[in-house]
């Protein structure tokens, strides 16, 4: 839901900013300030990239993730001057990343390639940079893309239900249901990994 006013989460690392600081950054971005653009990129690029990697899943090539990342940031640059500030900047950028990732997954050949590896995640080449808990990584990678997205946003990015609803353009109620199903699916996968 585009009109959901997502709450800014104040807890956690310094990457998240206070609303006033974010409003000031947005104002500078609307003027096309180069330093503000750099600040925005430094603050959100890594988080957006990680979200894209998780959304695309292990079947996607690094090049696919790079393409989505590129398309996302160009679309963000084109959309920022018109962004009304009714959600956080991260929510705004992440919603675009979600759309671009889903769009890529819908394209025929790439979709087939991703789907084939999703059905057999054990065959995916292990990624040394993707963390230490291999069983969790495999279980997570085997989930449906929308489950991966909600779990990533909820537990890794610590987004609120309202923020996730704004990113995935759905209702908070639908997100709560999806989170419940995603957690159950992950638990089942983790049990199977034991």
């Amino acid at each position, binding site marked *: 839901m585009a009109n959901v006013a997502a709450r800014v989460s104040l807890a956690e690392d310094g990457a998240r900013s206070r609303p006033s600081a974010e409003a000031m950054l947005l104002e500078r971005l609307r003027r096309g300030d180069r330093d503000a653009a750099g600040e925005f*990129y430094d603050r959100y690029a890594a988080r957006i990239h*990680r979200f894209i990697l998780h959304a695309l899943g292990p079947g996607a090539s690094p090049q696919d993730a790079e393409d989505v990342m590129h398309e996302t*940031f160009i679309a963000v640059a084109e959309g920022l001057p018109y962004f009304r500030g009714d959600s956080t900047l991260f929510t705004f950028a992440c919603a675009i990343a979600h759309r671009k990732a889903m769009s890529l997954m819908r394209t025929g050949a790439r979709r087939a390639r991703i789907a084939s590896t999703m059905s057999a995640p054990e065959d995916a080449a292990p990624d040394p*940079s993707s963390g230490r*808990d291999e069983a969790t990584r495999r279980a997570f990678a085997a989930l449906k893309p929308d489950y991966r997205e909600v779990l990533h946003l909820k537990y890794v990015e610590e987004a609120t239900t309202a923020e996730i609803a704004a990113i995935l353009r759905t209702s908070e109620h639908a997100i709560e249901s999806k989170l419940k199903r995603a957690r159950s699916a992950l638990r089942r996968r983790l049990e199977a990994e034991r």
Partner: protein
Amino acid sequence: MNPHDDDNAIAARLREAAGPAPMPDAALRARFAARLRDVTAHPETVPIQFDGRKIEARRGGTLLGAALKSRTRLMHLCGARALCATCRVKVTAGEENLAPMSLKERLSLRYHLSFGSRTRLACQARVQGPVEVESVFPLCGDVPD
């Protein structure tokens, strides 16, 4: 097990498995800044996507006008009078960046049995910001010279 403990355990495992965030790409950083500067330097021109093709629209102009100006073919049998609804488009992103539907447009869409909130008439919908649309009745090729 307490559901909150279970929740916390899942959160801890997922954070652990997520690993470090990838290193940002310096070239993309520069391209992002350049594109932002370019877009803000031309506030009257809005970048839009029409049937997957990137075109530019005049701010306040119609989608049909933008399509025709960029030589993208789009059916409009009634001559942009909101009668035929052949210029119908499905808004895939940025519907909030189109001016609200007029009564004339709403009536025309209902008459043609289009009730979805994301379906608009390209001849009536005025662009206020970036938007992505797909024509309901696509035509092949470009508008000839």
